[in-house]
C-alpha cells in the first residue's frame, strides 16, 4: 500500500463521514434554515473529499476529469439551491424565531395581500400555516 493509497482512503473515509453528519443534521436540526446549513457545508466538503480520494485512486484514467466536474458543479449549485429553499422557507415563515439570538430582519411582510381564494373563500387548503403567525403555538420538535 503506497502513500497515495493511504491519502486516498483517508479522503474517502473523511468524506463519507462528513456526508453522514450532513444527513444527521438534516434530521436533527430544528428548522429549515438550520437544515440547509447541513445540506451545504459538510455535504459539499464531503463530496469534494470523496472526489479527491477517487481522483487519487483513478489517476490517469479519463474518468478523472468527470470527477473534477462533479466537484466544480457541487460548489456552484449547492449554495444556490440551499439559498432558494431557505429564501422560500423564510418568506413562508418556517423559522423557529424562538431559537434566534439576534433577528435584524424582523418579521417579513405578508408576501400576498389576503384576498379570498376563488374556490375556497374560508382559506386556501393548500397554503401552509405560518410557523410563527399571530396565533401559532410553538411547535414541539419530535
Amino acid at each position: 500500500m503506497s502513500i497515495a493509497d493511504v491519502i486516498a482512503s483517508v479522503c474517502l473515509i473523511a468524506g463519507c463521514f462528513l456526508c453522514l453528519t450532513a444527513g444527521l443534521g438534516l434530521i436533527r436540526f430544528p428548522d429549515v434554515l438550520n437544515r440547509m446549513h447541513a445540506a451545504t457545508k459538510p455535504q459539499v466538503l464531503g463530496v469534494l473529499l470523496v472526489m479527491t480520494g477517487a481522483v487519487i485512486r483513478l489517476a490517469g484514467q479519463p474518468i478523472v476529469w468527470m470527477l473534477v466536474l462533479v466537484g466544480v458543479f457541487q460548489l456552484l449549485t449547492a449554495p444556490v439551491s440551499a439559498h432558494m429553499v431557505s429564501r422560500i422557507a423564510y418568506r413562508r415563515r418556517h423559522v423557529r424565531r424562538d431559537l434566534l439570538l439576534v433577528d435584524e430582519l424582523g418579521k417579513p411582510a405578508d408576501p400576498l395581500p389576503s384576498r379570498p381564494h376563488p374556490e375556497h373563500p374560508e382559506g386556501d387548503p393548500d397554503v401552509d400555516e405560518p410557523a410563527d403567525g399571530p396565533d401559532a403555538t410553538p411547535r414541539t420538535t419530535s
Partner: protein
Amino acid sequence: MTARVTRLRQQVPLLVWLVLVWNMLWGTFSWANLLSGLLIAVVATTLLPLPSVPASGRFRPVAALRFLGRFLADLLVSSAEVSWLAIRPGQHRSAIITVQLRTDSDLLLTVIAEALSLVPGSLVLDLDREEQVLALHLVQVRDLAHVERQRANVLGMEDRVVRAFGSAEDIARLDRPDTDTPETQGTERLSQL
C-alpha cells in the same frame, strides 16, 4: 454591428467554458472533441440565449489565491462546526443578521453570495440589490460579540472577493470610510436591551 461584436466578445468566456466541460465529460482532449464541443456550444448559446453579464472586473492571481486558500480553510472549519452541531446533543442558538455591503456589481455580488453560503457558518437569505444589504442566517452564535465577529468575517470575505476579481473602481469603493449603517445600530439597540 458593434453591438453584435460586443455580444460575441462577452460570449467567448461562456463558449470556452462549454467546450472545456464537453471535453472533460469525454475525458480526453482531442480535435474531434474540440470541434464537436465548439459546434454544440455555439448551437446551445444560440438556441438558449442568456442575458449577458457585463464582466467589469479583472483577475488578480495573487489576491485570487488568497481568496481561494482562505475559502478552503473556512470550508474545513465551517464543515467541522456544522458536523459537530449535528452530532452533539442539545440545541444551539441561531441568528439572522443584515450586513451592508460596499460592492455594486452583479457578478461580484453573485460570487460573494455563493461563497458566503458555503462559509463561514452563514446562509444567504436575501439580497437587497439597490441598497446592497445582505440578509444572512448564522447557524450558531454564542453571544453578541460572536455576531459581530461573524459580521466582520462577512465583510472580510467581500474584501477578498473584490480584491481578487473586482475593477479598480470596486476596490476604491472598499476603502471609502463607512458611515454608520442601520445594521450596526440594530445590534447596538439589541445590546442595550
